[in-house]
Each structure stands twice: as structure tokens, then as C-alpha cells.
């Protein structure tokens, strides 16, 4: 029963906030709801109850429990950040109100995606989350953000359309058989024959667009660049993981039957997006766009990891979780830096470590984690993916990936390190950052280091179980 | 054995001055002059010992210690070489490595003293000396390494007492002689590498490094150089001496005669040709390296080579 609350609670509070005009308490309600969802997810984690809800449409299994806890945790962090932002700059009151309502609707949709047991139902929830977050990208008075928001909606619409097309094609594969199961996760139609393969291919192409993978990815840098930092964090950490959950369900369900095509297409799209994002990383001079391309890079590596499967699944999960925390930290810090320096051009920003000690340290540590330095989870995740690549005999892809990751390492480091350690140009004084505004990022950091060095046994058991489902039998 | 060692020590004391005197006398004869008495270098050394040295105010204790380090290392190296064709005062495995690196230490000390005076000329001499040394060292190691391969030994005097048995060892022997002569000329600043009697500092190599030394220090340097000359000449003589290894009186006398012969040849060469241009000296030293490589390759030859 408590699982259903995870969806109902945000919806109810969203409606309440929309109706009431109570301004000052809005953000407090938002953060409270976020905290409640995190606690509920934690409870689910501690005492797993395997009941099916809403006539089998929603069901909690290991994967959804893990992702629920992570996603809601990050949402709570972002909500606390927004609350602090509104608290410190009162003129954001109106925008805060709009943000609270829409982000709670977004949370409800994402929680549904994570708990969905019916693929089409999951599709609907994902589409709903897109609709909830699209207007948030618009920043009042900035034309480019409206353009970015429209493109985000357009690409999502086309991407999810392709996914729907894929479902229809896979459905047609059973032209004759009266297949009662429909789209429940337990007994999905197997995609064999020309229709099945076409369907699976279209499905992956559509999900790739939603995740920001290769062919249709150009919406991601624009949306992450133009959206306010809190919304970028929601997009990068929460929406990405929701779309990824759908891909995980597809992989879990159809790895045995459609394995060859699955591996081939995921590897191709992953490799293509790593290539494209590395090229753009080298060329870009805009800080938020750099982080956007870095997240495309990481999405590519995740796709490659999922593609191989054999032995890489644990690494992929480790990589996904640490990636979520890294993006949360970096996008929020990038927002703070942009607000402080009034510019996104990386060549203008210098001496962060002394100008904004907290943000400087967070940017440094976040970049370390982004680039895969040891103490963080991404280091081991990357190693496991690379070892599985070598293990499954794809040494050419391995070599190419090593070169590309090093090139993106050089490009990112070359742009961000001078920002951290440069000679500060104009001494701009900024309100001392209180511990409150920094605590969410601190929490993400602790989680990140824990993922790297010492994963507590309970979480480790869960990770192993989820990795098991992703592996080829 | 002690008699040979004593003879060696006696030779060590006498030979340096005799050989330098012979070379000067031969050059004088070629120039149509009687030339100074044979032991003139000894008298010069004694004269300098009685003088009190004058040191530059720029110099540090390194300047004062360098000449004596040169003398010590040259004397040390002389103890290891077969001056009379037979076993030297001390003989052990890889002794020529100690010899080569001892000479290196002496050379470094001298170069540091030259740089210490802070004069442009001495710096120039040190630079040239260092450059030529980098070409001489590998030649020495190639030659003695090749000879060591032929006689399956690692001590200097057994390597030099090479028995010519076939085409390969003959070729090795000939190229070793050529290489050692060139090394001798480069190390002891004889023509055509460097002219000891020139007055124009810009053309000097070794002499310009010792410009600022005076009194006993200058004597130490000259004796040190004479000792290095003796070591080089004795090495060439032992190599030329067919009955080198027997340790009989005849072989000792033959080595002495051959040493004087080598001194005469050096004096003649100095009288007949002018000093090479500085740019061509490295090519001349390259001849020594080529000869060393030839000796080394001879070791792999089928006939008379190593089994």
C-alpha cells in the first residue's frame, strides 16, 4: 500500500499547491513531500513488499526499489536547493510556486515510470513526466529557453512516438495468436521474425533519443544549457534515470530472445554518441553545455555497458548511480557559478577555489568524479565496463573507447581546471554560503564516495540482484 | 712476482719523464735543433715544486684540490697497467673499468678547476675536453671489450697480451693498435688533437685549462699528464710485443724498447703534421670508434674468431 503513496502523495500536494496561493510555505511543502517520498522509498528498501497494485499495473521489484530510493533522494536534494534559492532571493517567489507544482507532478510521473509493471503504462507515465517538465525549462524573458523547451518537447514526442511504433510492430509479430498477456512485464510477446526485430530496433532508437544517445541528441545540450539549474538537475538526474528504467525493463525482458540486435544497436548508438560528444566537448566554451556533452558521453558509455551485458552489468549499475549523483552536484554548482559570475563562458571564469570556496570544491570534486578518478564509484564502474568489453572480445571497441574517454578527459580537464585554479579577475563578493544551501550536495558527495570505496552489504545485495536480471542467462 | 712489481714501480717513477723527454728531443731533431736534455721535464717539475702558488681570488678549494686529484688518479691508473709487458702492480677483474672511470674523475676535477677560475678561455678548454672525452670513452671500452672477448679475460694486462692466431685476431689486433694510438693522442693532448706548445689560447684544448695553475699544482698536472702518456704508451707497447705475457726479462726489455719506439713515432707525427681543425677532431676520434667496432666484429668472424 505504501508504494501507492509514492505516487499519490506528490499528486495531492501538487494539486494543493496549485489551488492554494500560500506563497511562503510552498517551497517548504515541496521539500517536505520530497523528504516523505525518500523516506517511503527507504522503507520500501528496508522491508521489501512484493504486492501488485492498481490491477497489476504497478509492481515493486528490486530494480524499481533501488532506482526509487536514488531518484527520490536526488529530487529531495534539488527541492532543498530550490527552497534555499527562493529563501535567499525573494523575487523568485512566483517562479518558485510554478516550479513546485510542476516538479511535484513530474515526481509523481517519474515514480510511476519506476514502478510500472506494464510497458505501455510506463510509456504513458514517461510521456506525462516530459509534459510536466517541458514548461519548467522556459525561463521568463529568455527567448532561447522557450526555443529549447519547444525542441525538448518535439524530440521527446518523436522519440516516444518511435517507441510506440516499436510496440505496435512487436504486437503485430503475433498477428495470429490470441495473446492475452498484452504488455505486462511478466509475459511480454517475444520480438522474433522481421516485425519483431524491426519493432525492437525502433524501440531502441526511440529510447536512445529520449536518453540523449547518438542520432537524435541535439535537444539535450540546448535544454540543459537554457533551463534553470534546478530543472537541469531534474532533467539530468531524474528524467534520465526514468527513461533508463524503461530501457532496463526492455533489456531485462528481451535480452534472451533479441540479444544479438540489442547488443549491436546499443553498442553502435553508444559508440556514436561517445564520438560525437567528445568532439563537441573539445569545441565548446560554454560551461553548462560542457556538462551536457559530458552527460551524453556518460550515456554512451552506459549504452555500451548495457549492450555487452556479460559481466558489465554490475559496473553499469555502479556507473549509473554515481553518474546520477555527479550530475546532480555539477548542475547545481554550475547554476551557482553562473549566477555569481553572470556568464557561462569558461574562459572568463577564474580562481573559483578562492572566490567561491564551497562551489569551487564541489566543482573540483564533481569533475574528479566525472572524469573517473579513483575514490568515486564511476572509476570502478568504468573499469568493469572496460574489462567486460575486453572479456567479450571486442578489443577494437575497447581501444576506441579508451582513446575517446582520454580525449574527453583532456577536453573537460583543460576547460574546467583553469576555472578552479586560475587567477581571479575581479574580486566579486558573494553572500557567505550557509551550510544549509550546501547540505544536499554534501549528501550526494558522501553517497558518491560510498559507492566507490565501501558499498554497504544491504545495497550490495540489491545491486547484485539487479545486475543478475540484466545479464544474459 | 714481487720483483716484477718492484720493476713496475721503478718504471712508473722513471718512464714518464723519459718518454716526454724523448718526444721533445725527437721534435727538436726534426726541427734541426739539439733540443733540451732528456730529463728536462723532471727538472721543470722540481723547479715548479719549489715555487709558491698564486690562486685567483675567484677560485674555491676545488681549484686547489683538482691538480692533486688528477695526479692521484693518473698514478692509480698507472699501477694497474702492464708497464713492462708483464703483470702490473695490481691486476683484478674489470680493472680497466676502474682505470677509465678514474681518468674520468681526474678529467672532471680538471674541468671544474678550469670553470672555477671564471675565465672565458679556461671554460672553452673545459668544453672542448669534455666533448672529446665523450667520443674517446666508448672507443676505449669497445677496444678493450673486444680484446677481452678474444682472450676470455676481464683484466687489462691479459687482454693486451693478445696472441695473434688467425685472420680474425690479426684484424682485431691491428684495429686495436690504431684505436689505442688515437685514444692516447686524445687523452694526453698530443698533436693532431691538441698542440701542447701553442701560445694562442683560442686553439688550445688541454693547455688552456691549466693556464691559471702555478707552482706545485702545475707540476702535479704535468706529472699527471706524463703518467697518462706512460700508461697509454705502455698499453700500445704491450699490444705490439709478441711475447708480452711470459714475464721474462726479454719481454720486459722488448716492451721498454717498444715504448720508446712509440714515443719516437709520436714525436715524428707531431713534427710532420699540423693540428686538425677543431671541427675535424671528432671525425678523427670517430676513426678510433670505427676501429673499436671493427675489432668487436672481428670477434664474430668464422676463422680464428671465438668458438
Amino acid at each position: 500500500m505504501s508504494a501507492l503513496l509514492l505516487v499519490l502523495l506528490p499528486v495531492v500536494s501538487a494539486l494543493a499547491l496549485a489551488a492554494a496561493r500560500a506563497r511562503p510555505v510552498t517551497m517548504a511543502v515541496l521539500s517536505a513531500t520530497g523528504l516523505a517520498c525518500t523516506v517511503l522509498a527507504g522503507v520500501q528498501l528496508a522491508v521489501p513488499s512484493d504486492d501488485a497494485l492498481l490491477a497489476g499495473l504497478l509492481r515493486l521489484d528490486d530494480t524499481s526499489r533501488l532506482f526509487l530510493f536514488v531518484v527520490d533522494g536526488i529530487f529531495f536534494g534539488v527541492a532543498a536547493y530550490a527552497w534555499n534559492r527562493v529563501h535567499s532571493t525573494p523575487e523568485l517567489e512566483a517562479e518558485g510556486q510554478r516550479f513546485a507544482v510542476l516538479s511535484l507532478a513530474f515526481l509523481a510521473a517519474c515514480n510511476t515510470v519506476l514502478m510500472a509493471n506494464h510497458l505501455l503504462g510506463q510509456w504513458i507515465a514517461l510521456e506525462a513526466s516530459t509534459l510536466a517538465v517541458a514548461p519548467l525549462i522556459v525561463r521568463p524573458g529568455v527567448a532561447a529557453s522557450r526555443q529549447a523547451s519547444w525542441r525538448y518537447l518535439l524530440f521527446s514526442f518523436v522519440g516516444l512516438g518511435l517507441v510506440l511504433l516499436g510496440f505496435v510492430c512487436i504486437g503485430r509479430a503475433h498477428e495470429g495468436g490470441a495473446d492475452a498477456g498484452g504488455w505486462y512485464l511478466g509475459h511480454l510477446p517475444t520480438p522474433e521474425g522481421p516485425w519483431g526485430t524491426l519493432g525492437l530496433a525502433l524501440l531502441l532508437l526511440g529510447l536512445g533519443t529520449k536518453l540523449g544517445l547518438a542520432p537524435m541528441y541535439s535537444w539535450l545540450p540546448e535544454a540543459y544549457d537554457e533551463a534553470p539549474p534546478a530543472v537541469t538537475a531534474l532533467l539530468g538526474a531524474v528524467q534520465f534515470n526514468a527513461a533508463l528504467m524503461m530501457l532496463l525493463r526492455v533489456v531485462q525482458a528481451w535480452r534472451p530472445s533479441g540479444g544479438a540486435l540489442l547488443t549491436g544497436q546499443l553498442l553502435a548508438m553508444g559508440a556514436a554518441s561517445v564520438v560525437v560528444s567528445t568532439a563537441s566537448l573539445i569545441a565548446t566554451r560554454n560551461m553548462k553545455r560542457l556538462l551536457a556533452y559530458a552527460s551524453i558521453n556518460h550515456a554512451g558509455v552506459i549504452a555500451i555497458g548495457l549492450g555487452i551485458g556479460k559481466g558489465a552489468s554490475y559496473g553499469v549499475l555502479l556507473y549509473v548511480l554515481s553518474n546520477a549523483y555527479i550530475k546532480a552536484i555539477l548542475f547545481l554548482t554550475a547554476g551557482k557559478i553562473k549566477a555569481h559570475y553572470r556568464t557561462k563562458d569558461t574562459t572568463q571564469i577564474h580562481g573559483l577555489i578562492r572566490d567561491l570556496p564551497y562551489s569551487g570544491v564541489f566543482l573540483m570534486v564533481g569533475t574528479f568524479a566525472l572524469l573517473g578518478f579513483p575514490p568515486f564509484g564511476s572509476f570502478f564502474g568504468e573499469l568493469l565496463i572496460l574489462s567486460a568489453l575486453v572479456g567479450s572480445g571486442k578489443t577494437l571497441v575497447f581501444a576506441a573507447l579508451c582513446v575517446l574517454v582520454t580525449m574527453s578527459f583532456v577536453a573537460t580537464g583543460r576547460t574546467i581546471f583553469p576555472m578552479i585554479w586560475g587567477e581571479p579577475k575581479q574580486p566579486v563578493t558573494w553572500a557567505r554560503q550557509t551550510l544549509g544551501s550546501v547540505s544536499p550536495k554534501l549528501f550526494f558527495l558522501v553517497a558518491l564516495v560510498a559507492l566507490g570505496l565501501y558499498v554497504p552489504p544491504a545495497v550490495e545485495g540489491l545491486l547484485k540482484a539487479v545486475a543478475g536480471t540484466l545479464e544474459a542467462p | 712476482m714481487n720483483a716484477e712489481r718492484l720493476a713496475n714501480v721503478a718504471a712508473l717513477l722513471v718512464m714518464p719523464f723519459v718518454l716526454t723527454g724523448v718526444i721533445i728531443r725527437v721534435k727538436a731533431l726534426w726541427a734541426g735543433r739539439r733540443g733540451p736534455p732528456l730529463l728536462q721535464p723532471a727538472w721543470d717539475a722540481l723547479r715548479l715544486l719549489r715555487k709558491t702558488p698564486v690562486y685567483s681570488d675567484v677560485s674555491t678549494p676545488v681549484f686547489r684540490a683538482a691538480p692533486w686529484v688528477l695526479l692521484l688518479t693518473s698514478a692509480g691508473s698507472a699501477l694497474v697497467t702492464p708497464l713492462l709487458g708483464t703483470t702490473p702492480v695490481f691486476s683484478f677483474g674489470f680493472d680497466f673499468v676502474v682505470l677509465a672511470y678514474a681518468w674520468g674523475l681526474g678529467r672532471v676535477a680538471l674541468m671544474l678547476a678550469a670553470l672555477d677560475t671564471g675565465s672565458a678561455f679556461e671554460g672553452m678548454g673545459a668544453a672542448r675536453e669534455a666533448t672529446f672525452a665523450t667520443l674517446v670513452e666508448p672507443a676505449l671500452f669497445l677496444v678493450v671489450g673486444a680484446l677481452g672477448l678474444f682472450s676470455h679475460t676481464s683484466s687489462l694486462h691479459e687482454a693486451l697480451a693478445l696472441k695473434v692466431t688467425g685472420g680474425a685476431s690479426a684484424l682485431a689486433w691491428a684495429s686495436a693498435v690504431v684505436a689505442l694510438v688515437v685514444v692516447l693522442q686524445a687523452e694526453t693532448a698530443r698533436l693532431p688533437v691538441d698542440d701542447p706548445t701553442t701560445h694562442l689560447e683560442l686553439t688550445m684544448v688541454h693547455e688552456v685549462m691549466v693556464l691559471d695553475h702555478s707552482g706545485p699544482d702545475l707540476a702535479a698536472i704535468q706529472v699527471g699528464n706524463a703518467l697518462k702518456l706512460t700508461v697509454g704508451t705502455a698499453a700500445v707497447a704491450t699490444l705490439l710485443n709478441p711475447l708480452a705475457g711470459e714475464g721474462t726479462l726479454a719481454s720486459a726489455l722488448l716492451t721498454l724498447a717498444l715504448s720508446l719506439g712509440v714515443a719516437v713515432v709520436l714525436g715524428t707525427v707531431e713534427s710532420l703534421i699540423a693540428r686538425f681543425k677543431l671541427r675535424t677532431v671528432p671525425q678523427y676520434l670517430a676513426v678510433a670508434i670505427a676501429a673499436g667496432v671493427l675489432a668487436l666484429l672481428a670477434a664474430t668472424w668464422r676463422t680464428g674468431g671465438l668458438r
Partner: protein
Amino acid sequence: MTLFLAAFPVLLVGAGAAALLQSNRAAFVVSLGSQAVATALVLAAVAPLLAGAAPLELSWHWPPPIERVSLQLDGLGAFFLAWSLPMTLLGTLYAWTYLQPFFDKGRRGGWHFALLALTSVSFVIVYSVQNAMVFLLGWETAAVAAWLLVIYDYRNQKIRFAGFNYLVSTHVGLFVLVAAFMLMHSATGSMEFRDFGAFLAKPSPTRSTVWMLLGVSFALKSAFFPFHTWLPRAHSAAPAHVSALMSGVIHKAGLFGFLRFTLLMGQPEEWMGWTVLVFGALSALFGVLSTATQRDLKRLLGYSSTENVGIAAMGFGLGLLGWTWNAPALSLAGFGGGVLHLFNHALFKCLLFYAAGAVYRATHTVDLERLGGLAKRLPRTASLFLVGAVAISALPPLNGFVSELLLYSGLLSGTAPRPDQNVLLVAAAAGLAFVGAVSALSMTRAFGVTFLGSTREPQLHVGDDAPGTMGWPMALHALGVVVAGVAPAAAMALVNGALRPFPMAGAVLEPLAPALWASRALAVGLVVVITWSWLKGRSARRSVTWGCGYTAPSPRLQYTGSSFVEQFARLFGAFIPALRREQLPTELLPQQPGSFATHHADPVERRMFEVLGQGEEYVTRSAGKVSEEPRFAFSAGLVALLLIALFLFGATR
């Protein structure tokens, strides 16, 4: 084993505390104290091992992805730990005075001392761990700690670039190492070195690829010839004690890795021995040529690290060859010579870098063209630098000569089975002799131009000599150099501990006893001669240096570093391209002064930057073409769709 394990938390706590403490002095004391305790613990655990006790084993479970953390401390790891930790301790002591100018300007040193403790932690991990993942963790921690140490003075852009250059190089090295480990992991299915050893024992093409990958990654960590480009920049940018630790101690982990996997591999193939010998000789030759021609004293010492690492690799190559020809004497001479040279290099390289640090502290420059005559103002630093210079040129009485004598005894012994192999070994010995001669030239130049003569830039203000806390580390290292030279048995006690895990047994130094007695005699002679001449000359008359009658001598007339090496550099111009920047006076009576400067650039680095620059420019141009318009993305999607359809046609037809 518990003693050894206790060192780990002590260091971590020390590092953590030092990082958080506000006052620099407290942070220094905490870091130094924790390192001292850890060193004592490690030495206590390591001493019996060097004496021949059985290796210590321990392993315990750890959550994935590491699965098991297994430690095994054998003779080899013990040897490296025995001197790495004390030298890092001395480095931290040196750092306190060296960084005072920064502390006076309000800079916080807490992080710096914490990173120094963290470097010791990485030694403890790398030299004892048997699990590939944790080894990589230790490897990368050392790299990141060294990087953050190098960019301590991060305000200067050149220093940040040098640090970043170093970070990228080590990261590339890490990827190559990961490739090798993962190849072995996929072949054996486990992450333990013991299983890797089982796989490496059988010769196979994968083994050769893995060996080459390991060789490249360790070569990059130890800055061998083609991969050395990060070393000189990092050393001229880093504070002196960091350069000393990096080039004396930290980059020895590469050679340790090579020895560790040689042991795991067991019987090597002959081509491996020749590759390492040739690779080492190449690295020594290039390193020494660059050492001879550099203007910056610390860059010069950086290049000489490449040279000495090359010489150590020649020893290892000889050891591998001896192993394949099962000639134990040759193999022991090779490995013994290599390991002893590695230890000697750590001693005299740290000494030289500390002396260079003292020079920088006094004159705020390490450019040879402006220095000169420092011996009068910095007598202690000058004499210690002289000891280091004589040792690094492998001249007789000191420790460099002993290890090179060992190598010569292997190369010139003529015990190879075929004559042509003997000839190649003698040729290698000749190469080593050439390297020794050029190293003598470069060290004479470095010492002579910096400390002797008179100061080339008259208005250069020369401060006072190094105080106690900088003097003591230098003196201790110099003492180590002299003792290892005169009484090599002491150093061999350590090296024998390292050679114990190797299959071949036997005495290493005994056949060279007479030669060592000769060098001891020479040492006694030198002491007598130097003291006698020093006493005699003190009261002697002083006058002006003989200038051939030139009436207006000026310090600028002296031979500078570049002119000293100009003829030599012209001989080897192909290897060290000379760059000239000149602004010659044009008119008959020139009004303003002309200027002339020569630099010797590193050809490998110039080529690398040229290639990288081209690549980046091409990528930026092509990335610029792809516009953000949705049209491009959708057309790409349409193309992808058509490809899928085509692929399907292929499948159904």
C-alpha cells in the same frame, strides 16, 4: 603483518587531520608525526623480510567490485618500502622550510602536507597489494596526489599546464595498465596477481601483448624515452621536494611493477631481454643528451632521471637475458646492478633536487645562464651538490660507480652462449660508457656553471644558505651516497633482500671485491689530497685570474651553460634541436643592445604537441559544422531508420 597494516590507518588519519588543521605548523607536525610512526611500523615489519623471512600474506573480503583485498609483502616490496617511506619523510621535513615564503603570504599548507602523507599511503598500497583493482586504486592515488602536489603554486599558468600535462600522461598510462589487467582478467577470470602469474607462466601471443602493454604503462610511469615528455615540465614546475620525491621515489613504482610482473611471469623469452636492454639504452642515451643541453637546472635533473631509469632497465634487460641463457652470474649481475642503481639513483637524485631547491630559495631562479659563483655564498649546498654530481656521473669513490661496475661486470663478462650475443653486450657496454662520459659532461656543466666562477648576472641577489631543516635531509642523503659508495655491502644487504624472490641464487658483489677495494683506496687518497690541498692553500697569495692581458673582463665573458655544450650539441643536433632567438644589432654603431638566446627543445614533445594541436583544430572545425538545428538531428534519425530497414531487408532476403 598487523604492524604493517597499522601503518595504513595511521597515515590516513594523519593526512585527514593535516588537511583540516588551520595552522600550517600544526598540520606539518601532524603529517610528519604520522609519517614517522608509519615509517617505523613499516620498517619494523620489513626488516625481517629483507633478512630472509618468509613473505607475509593476508587477505580479507571486501564488497564488490573489489571482492577480495589480498596483501603479500615479499622481499621486493619490502626493499622498495624500506627506502620509499623514509625518503618521503625527509621530503616532508624539507618542505616545511622550502614553503615558508608561501606560508608568509598566507597560503595554507595543510592540504600539501596531507597529500605528502597520502603519497606514502599509495606506496604502502602499490608495494604490497595482490589485487588488480586495489593496485589500480593505489596507482591512481599516487598520480592524483603527485599532480595536486605539483600544482601547489597554482596561481602560475605554466605550473598548472605542467601539472595537467602530467595528469593526462599518467591517465593514458592508467588506461594501458587497465587494458593489460583486463586482458589477464578475461583470460583468468579473477583479479588476483597469483592467477595472473599462472596465466603468464605459459608463453602465448596474448602473454606477449600483455607484456608489451605492461611494459608501455610502466615505461610511461617511470618516464622512459618516448613517454618521458611529462617529466621535465613537471619537475621544473613543482616545488623542489615534490620534484625530488617524484623523480627519486614515486616514479620508481613503474620499475617495481616491471619487476613484480617479471617475477610473476617466471622464465622470460629472449626477445624480451633484448627489448628491455635496447629500450633502456635508448632511454639512457636520449636522457643524457637532453640532460647535457638544458638551461633550467631542475629540468636538467628531470631528464637525468630518464637516463638513470634507462640504465636500471639495461640492468633488468641483462638480468632477463641471463635468466633465459640460465647463466645465474650474468642474471644476478643484471638484476643486482639494476636494483642497486635504482636505489642509488633515489639517493643522489633527491640530494641534487634538494640542493637545486636551496639554490632556488636563495636566488629565486634555476636558469643556468644567470647563476654562477654560488659556492662562495652557499658553501654547504655547493659541496653537497658536488657529492651528488660526482655520484650521478658514476665516478669511482661514490655509489653510482658501484652499480655501473656491476652492470659492466655483466655486460663485459662474455658469458653469452653465442659470440654475436657477446658482441652486442660489449656494444651495450660501450653505449653505457658513452652515457657515463656525457653524464660527466652535463654534471660538470651543471655544477661548474651554477656554483663556480662568478655570478653571470651581477645584480642577482643571492640569499643565505639552506637552514637546518633543509640541510639535514641533504646531509643524510649525501651520507647515504658516500656509505653506499665506500661500503657497498650495506646497500647490498637491502638489494639482496629484493633479489631473494628471484630463482637464481649467488653472491652479487663478491667477484668485484678487488675493484671495490681499489675504489676504497682511491677514496682514502682523495680525502687525504683534498684536506691537504685545502689546508695548504688557505694562506696562499691571491690575485686576478689570468685574462691574457684583457683589461676589462666582465662576468658575462665566462662560458655559459649553452656555450659549454654548444660544440657537443652540434655533434648530436639531430637528437636535440637547438632553437635560437636573436635580435642582432644592425647599424654600424648599434644604439640599443641586441639579444641572443638559445634553447634546446625536446623533439618528442614538440612533435607530440604539434600532432595534438592539429587534431584538436580539426575536431573543433568539424564540430563547428554540425549545427544545433533540429533538422540535422531528424535527418540523422531518418537515415538511421532507413539503415534499420535495409538491415532488415538483408535479414529477411
